């Protein structure tokens, strides 16, 4: 559906980096459209396994903070990490719950649909001492994929992101190219991924910084289809 969309400007919700992507296909999601395919640079899956940057800024996410935030997620039967700076994925893998502090959680939906659970969570009344956060708009969401993600990040981030120090399903909150970022290490269809969530107003700057660092490893921009997400 929607592969005939030629521009994200048909939608009210737009990614801050939409102008930087030579998109050829989109998929509508909520009020926005995710880039599913970009101008071809060869086999996209090969690129995704090597090194690629994908924009998921329009993909659905929501955050909650407060002493009752955990119970709010429990009501929605979402997986909740046992301690801060950990991530738990739903059984199907598309929903990720990030625990950013004792009482702060972000739920990210990496699928190209706005998942049932995220819908449910959005519709639920927010309990006392639980506050909704605006990470959908305050933060851009990029996925850096492939075998060279550690080397690429080592050019723009002063924190050790080797798997040894930064294992799967953990989170590092740090500075990337001098802007604050939340980095999550996970896998999508066995491809190593860093999900990077960073201030939306500096998203274009960070996008350029990442592409510059990726050049050395033949990294490129891809659409979400390259990861085989459903």
């Amino acid at each position, binding site marked *: 559906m929607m592969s005939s969309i030629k521009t994200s400007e048909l939608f009210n919700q737009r990614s801050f980096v939409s102008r930087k992507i030579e998109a050829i296909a989109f998929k509508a999601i909520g009020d926005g459209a995710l880039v599913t395919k970009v101008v071809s640079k060869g086999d996209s899956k090969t690129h995704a396994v090597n090194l690629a940057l994908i924009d998921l800024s329009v993909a659905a996410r929501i955050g909650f903070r407060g002493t009752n935030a955990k119970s709010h997620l429990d009501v929605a039967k979402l997986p909740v990490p046992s301690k801060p700076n950990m991530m738990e994925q739903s059984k199907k893998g598309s929903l990720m719950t990030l625990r950013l502090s004792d009482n702060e959680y972000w739920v990210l939906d990496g699928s190209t649909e706005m998942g049932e659970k995220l819908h449910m969570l959005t519709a639920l009344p927010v309990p006392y001492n639980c*506050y909704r956060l605006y990470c959908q*708009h305050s933060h851009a969401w990029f996925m850096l994929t492939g075998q060279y993600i550690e080397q690429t990040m080592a*050019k723009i981030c002063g924190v050790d992101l080797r798997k040894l120090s930064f294992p799967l399903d953990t989170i590092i909150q740090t500075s990337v190219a001098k802007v604050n970022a939340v980095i999550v290490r996970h896998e999508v269809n066995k491809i190593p991924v860093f999900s990077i969530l960073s201030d939306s107003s500096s998203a274009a700057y960070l996008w350029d910084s990442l592409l510059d660092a990726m050049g050395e490893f033949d990294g490129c921009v891809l659409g979400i289809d390259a990861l085989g997400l459903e």
Partner: protein
Amino acid sequence: MSNTMRLNKPMGLLVDHNKSINFEFDGKQYDGLQGDSIASALLANNRWLMSRSFKYHRARGPLTMAGQDANTMVQLGGEPNVLADKELIMSGQRVAGQNYSGSLVKDRDAILGYFSRFMPVGFYYRAFFKPMGMWEKWEPIIRKKSGLGKLDLDFEPEYYDKMYLFHDVVVVGGGPAGLSAALKAADAGCKVLLVEEQGILGGALAYHRFDIEGEKADILRGKLVERIEQHDNVEVLLNATCNAWFTDNYLPIIQGKRMYKARAKQCIVASGAFEQHVVFRNNDLPGIIMSSAATRLMKLYAVKPGQKAIVLTGNDDGYLTALELQEHGVEVRALVDMRTTNDSVELLTAVQNKGITVKKGHTVYEALGAKGNQHIRAVDVREIVGQGQVSQHSEIIDCDLLCMSAGYMPAYPLLCQAGAQLSYDDNSEFTLSNLPENLHIAGSVNGIYLLDTVLKDGEFAACKALKNLGHNIELPAKEKCTRKVNFYWPIFSHPKGKDFVDFDEDLQTKDIVNATRLGYRDIQLVKRFSTVGMGPSQGRHSALPTARLVADATDRTVTQTGVTTARPPYAPEKLAHVAGRIFDPVRHTAMHYRHLELGAKMMPAGNWHRPAFYGKPAERDNCMQIESQHVRNNVGIIDISTLGGIELRGPDAAEFMNRIYTFAFLKQPLGKTRYAILTNEYGVVIDDGVACRIADEHFYVTATTGGVDHVYRQMLKWNAQWRLNVDIANVTSAFAAINVAGPDSRKVIQKIAEGVDLSSEAFPFLAYREGTVAGIPARLLRVGFVGELGYEIHVPASYGEALWDAVMDAGKEFKIKPFGVETQRLLRLEKGHIIISQDTDGMSHPGEISMGWAINRKKSFFVGSRSVEIVMAREQTRKLVGFVLSKDNVKPKEGHLVLEEGNISGNVTSCEYSCAVDSIIGMAYAGINQSEPGSSIDIRVDKGLIVKATVVKMPFFDPQNKRQEL
């Protein structure tokens, strides 16, 4: 030219004998082999003259062949001061000498050497400043002569970058000690980074002869390197220089165009040692090289360094060098040993069996130059009869090569940067002590020279590192080395001088001794007076002889004298390495591209980019006036997304607001906005904004673009003390916002707003409402910063561009126009609205800026309340006032001074021409006696002119504020 001095395989570890490369040096074509450095390729062609010395323009050729001296600095295209003994040759490369007048071979400035007695150390400071005014005459001449090489001012920037590395253990130095340490640590499971300055691993194993047969090094190197290359836990950086040591093993490593910033849990420095030269007359002639340089030339580059050699040594290594030279067809005319006995009888026998004459207790007293002193032709050998003393009997021996070694000095700079203490004992040997906890040393830098012991020392250092990393490991016994490598006094001063201590700066023994006689007894003062050790080689060869000379002249030991401080960088580094790929974040609003499409002149606001106005930069004033008139008469739209936004939610939100801001907020009605001023503990106004009460327990408060981060931090800080039940969130980036202002603004918004009644009764001035605008959920505020009917519309940031598009589309029929920040500043100035940090400074309290009305004096506390009370009760000295000037005056600029009877009483904070008022209007701090409306104030404008402005009551425009309340 052909490679006349080339040796056959297996010599030449670094070169490919089958691949020839042609390049140009000094206007002539030369052939080299792939892998050659510029210097090795030139030496293979018997070309020794590569540079001219800094002061006397003496002919210079390679000294170390390891990039440790300034003798091979050449001009490579547009890049000066390239080290020819490190830079690889490339096909078609054009290389030239530098620092000469005429040609490199016939340098007219070489005549300066004859006048050296008139140019002693310090002459520069004393000679050119008297009589008064002479410096102006000398300066252009001196400047013309100074500097090495030529900069290419048309240089195109190149891509340099940085990368972080993280390892358990970083080993600096890929010689036997470093390899051994790296393997031990890697075998234990550590992730190891091995950093080697040269292009191959092995260090001295790659070029030095360790035994009479000359086999041991090659075999050992092969084994060690093979293990390193196959080890999964070892990462190797070749041609990489660890250029500094910073606290906690933070190591900048330069390789090519990249600076790595390595973080090491443990660091092992196995940096080796610098071979030291012997000081005698003309010890700088081309053809005089370190012994290690000769073996490097043969083993690494397959270059025979000469035909007839003299070996001058202070240790047994000279014997091994002699064997190596003889084996490759160099006739060793004599081995001159400064000692009276050598360590190894077997070595002596082996050398003598090769027919080499050994002259013990002798030295080279003078080197004799060929025509123009461009190469060595013979040496004057004499018996040593005392410290630095030689007999009168002279023996002249012809030669074209002199290999010298007075001993070795630890490659100490990195370690001394880490705070290590370098000591020199009575046996002429060095030790390094006081190392930081996680920094270790191994090998010759640790004073260990016997190969087997060096390997064990590497393992010992690794074991210490492993223990620090928590490995359960027994420390082996510490290795000690009994071998002595340094001759105690390798300095033979000559009455005619040119006995160089420091080749970089052409410093002779008398220069150092004279410095001490002039009272510079401290080694650091000697350095600064004489410039010894301040050249590109940073004292690698001059530090020890200088310390010896100063110690002798001041009757102290070398340890008491010490060596000069080693500071980063270890080797010269380009500014590009430091500057390369600097990160300078910029922030864009959601409407950024729309502004560009509309021809906005963008301006920085912190790290945001904002439209200043729309139009050509040269037409700024006109654009602003047009935009401001349009807002006053029609409708305008401005992107205010950069405005800070903070959400306060929770049962104590109102209490928190009440404590943090000066106004009262406990009873602020729902759906209302209220102006909010923030003072600090000193009563100074630090920010302002508008607080919207969305719900009983929910406030949305704006802050200034530049101030929001500070305000947010202050809020978090205060609540860490107050422990109120409130959630504080900086939502600046989460919301995009516009202000639609002007008489037609309601009509525009009415077209696209839903769920909100925009009538003045339902939505009056200072009210807050929620609804949708063009289908986008929106927060609407009726505030009047520019003094017109207007609506601030805040929407989720991802919808910002769509909102802009919708409003622009709806406003077409009302001729809506965008306006920029500069226009907004003019509009608010007309209304007398201040901008915190532009119209305030670090001393401004609410009274000074006529904001007493924004202080609630009934409440018991707000941040800064006590200070505000005190500072406002004091006798006031200044006040922020509005002023007008007729438009034919020179327009004052922000910062121009306000005078009172000739004294400074304040300054202009804002000033602009207003077509609405048809005058120049502004705000300024003025003396309290000048602040009453009707007073005249003197403003000193450009060129010292004084303009007389009249103080007026603000606002300048629409004093009844009727327009914003429509």
